[in-house]
């Protein structure tokens, strides 16, 4: 190979590495290193004044599996994810289909749906706290008009998690709707016209044409919703603090509590590792399995 071709190749390689390096540095410092450090520290015992840190292998994990609170939190989170993901996707899709059709005040409808997403999490949670407050809250006020007794929605184990679930759906559906709206705009108008000429009903058109074309968006949203379902923490701080008696405690709150309320970093690290592993597996399944059945334009 001639010298100048070699030089050109080296130049290209350096150029490539230069383009890669900012992202690589940031990801290493803030994602890869913390992940490995977490994994590492989950294998050591908790440091106290009397007992210095020592390698304990999987003991922290064994502790967790033996802890009923851990299993309660897992169950809570599964229920939370199992309800919020499908329901918010369904509502988002319905709202998008509606807001995309030729209705009057379309701009207003879209803005209204999107408002919950724009609100900061803490502000939204405070708003709902006001709705849920027994006696003073909007829900109770409305209930009392019909002579219903006051209910402490956030204060009893049977309803606390459900109250959180409703807030999440309210917040996520509008956000996901925006993705669906954007995807709907990319479906050409003449597909509808071609279907119309064949006498396709609205429902058949939606089911056979629109939904399949929205699959990439649905997949993206589903993965995001799943990740969000283990990321929720701000609402819990404001609304329930995980209570009463852990009825509304979710994974991230549990990790936070473990690390910063009980100062048990190794156990917190162990849960984090478990969460990352489960999320990784589920995302892989979603992408590998559903990707094959999804049409990308």
């Amino acid at each position, binding site marked *: 190979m001639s010298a100048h071709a070699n030089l050109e190749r080296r130049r290209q390689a350096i150029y490539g590495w230069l383009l890669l390096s900012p992202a690589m540095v940031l990801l290493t410092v803030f994602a890869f290193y913390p992940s490995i450090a977490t994994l590492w520290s989950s294998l050591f015992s908790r440091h106290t004044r009397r007992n210095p840190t020592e390698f304990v292998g999987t003991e922290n994990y064994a502790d967790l599996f033996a802890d009923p609170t851990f299993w309660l939190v897992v169950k809570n989170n599964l229920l939370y994810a199992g309800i919020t993901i499908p329901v918010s996707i369904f509502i988002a899709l319905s709202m998008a289909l509606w807001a995309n059709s030729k209705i009057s005040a379309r701009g207003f409808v879209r803005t209204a749906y999107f408002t919950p997403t724009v609100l900061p999490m803490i502000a939204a949670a405070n708003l709902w706290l006001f709705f849920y407050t027994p006696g003073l809250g909007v829900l109770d006020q409305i209930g009392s008009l019909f002579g219903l007794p006051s209910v402490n929605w956030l204060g009893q184990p049977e309803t606390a998690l459900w109250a959180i679930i409703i807030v999440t759906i309210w917040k996520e559906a509008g956000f996901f709707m925006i993705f669906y709206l954007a995807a709907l705009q990319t479906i050409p108008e003449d597909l509808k016209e*071609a*279907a119309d000429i064949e006498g396709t009903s609205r429902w058949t058109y939606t089911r056979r044409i629109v939904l399949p074309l929205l699959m990439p968006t649905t997949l993206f949203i589903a993965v995001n919703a799943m990740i969000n379902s283990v990321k929720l923490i701000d609402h819990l701080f404001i609304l329930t603090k995980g209570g009463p008696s852990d009825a509304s405690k979710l994974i991230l709150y549990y990790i936070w509590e473990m690390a910063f309320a009980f100062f048990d970093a190794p156990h917190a690290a162990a849960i984090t590792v478990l969460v990352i592993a489960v999320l990784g597996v589920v995302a892989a399944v979603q992408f590998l399995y559903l990707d094959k059945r999804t049409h990308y*334009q």
Partner: protein
Amino acid sequence: MTNSQFVVLKDVAKRWNGQLGVEDISLEIPEGSFTALLGPSGCGKSTTLRLLAGLELPDEGQILIDGKDVTTSAASDRNLSMVFQSYALFPHLSVTENVVFGLKVRRVPKAERQEKLHRALEITGLLGYENRKPGELSGGQRQRVALARAIVAGQRLCLMDEPLSNLDAKLRNSVRKDIKKLQRDLGITVIYVTHDQTEAMSMADTVVLMKDGHIQQVGTPEDLYSRPNNIFVAEFVGAPPMALLQSTAPDGFGEGKTIGIRAENIQIVPKGEGRMCCTVNESEFLGAETLIGLDHADATGLCVLKPGMATMAEGTEIEINFHDDNLHIFDGAGQRLPD
């Protein structure tokens, strides 16, 4: 058997927010014919087609298909098929699924569906591509899928909205012939929108030339070429377009009129024998002939065709002659005067 009033439009008008869409559209299209709606972009030809298809509803007038008033009917009740400019293929469905989509919707039994599918794919030469998605096909193949979808519906009326405009020039030529043959073989009525006069003139039995939402002339391609109704038609149809002279330029035609003449009817003659004197401004070698552009103070678009390679130097003064029989005379308002 053939119905001379298969598709009828009576005084149809469609306006967009009070602005002109189409106005006073009246047409009678016989069964089994090939009709082209021709005109520059924005002339209302696509609107007319969409009104026929039921994708738009007219503000005024009446539309009849096969003797039935369909003015306000849904698109699916008009018993027609349509080929879209963009083909409107469903991108996530295979060729087969795209073609039989309509049959499935109409709950045609599976055996019949298979038979029709096979026939449509055979006609359009798509056998072997059944399982491809539109994204895996070339432009010409996609176009044929759109045709197959129209054929498989088995409707007697087929509307086509600039079906060739996304194809390259060479392919356009061959598909043009395919479509024409298909229409004859199946005996269907085709209404075809195009802005390309070559397409309209070569395929259609009847050409409807439109401008600014109004029909300018309805007739055979020959009619439009040799008996244009007005100056617009004269200038639109034919390449090179008809040259227009003020009636005072040659002797004996009076004032205030416009005379049209085509390049092939003009001869270059020796000095002193011609009716007009012009200057050569360009020579364009086209292969079989050479197009020579001429300048004259009272004429626009004047040119003459010479066989073979026969370029002339710019600025050459020449004299031209033409026969009165080959002239088209228009009045001051641009309308054709009786011969």
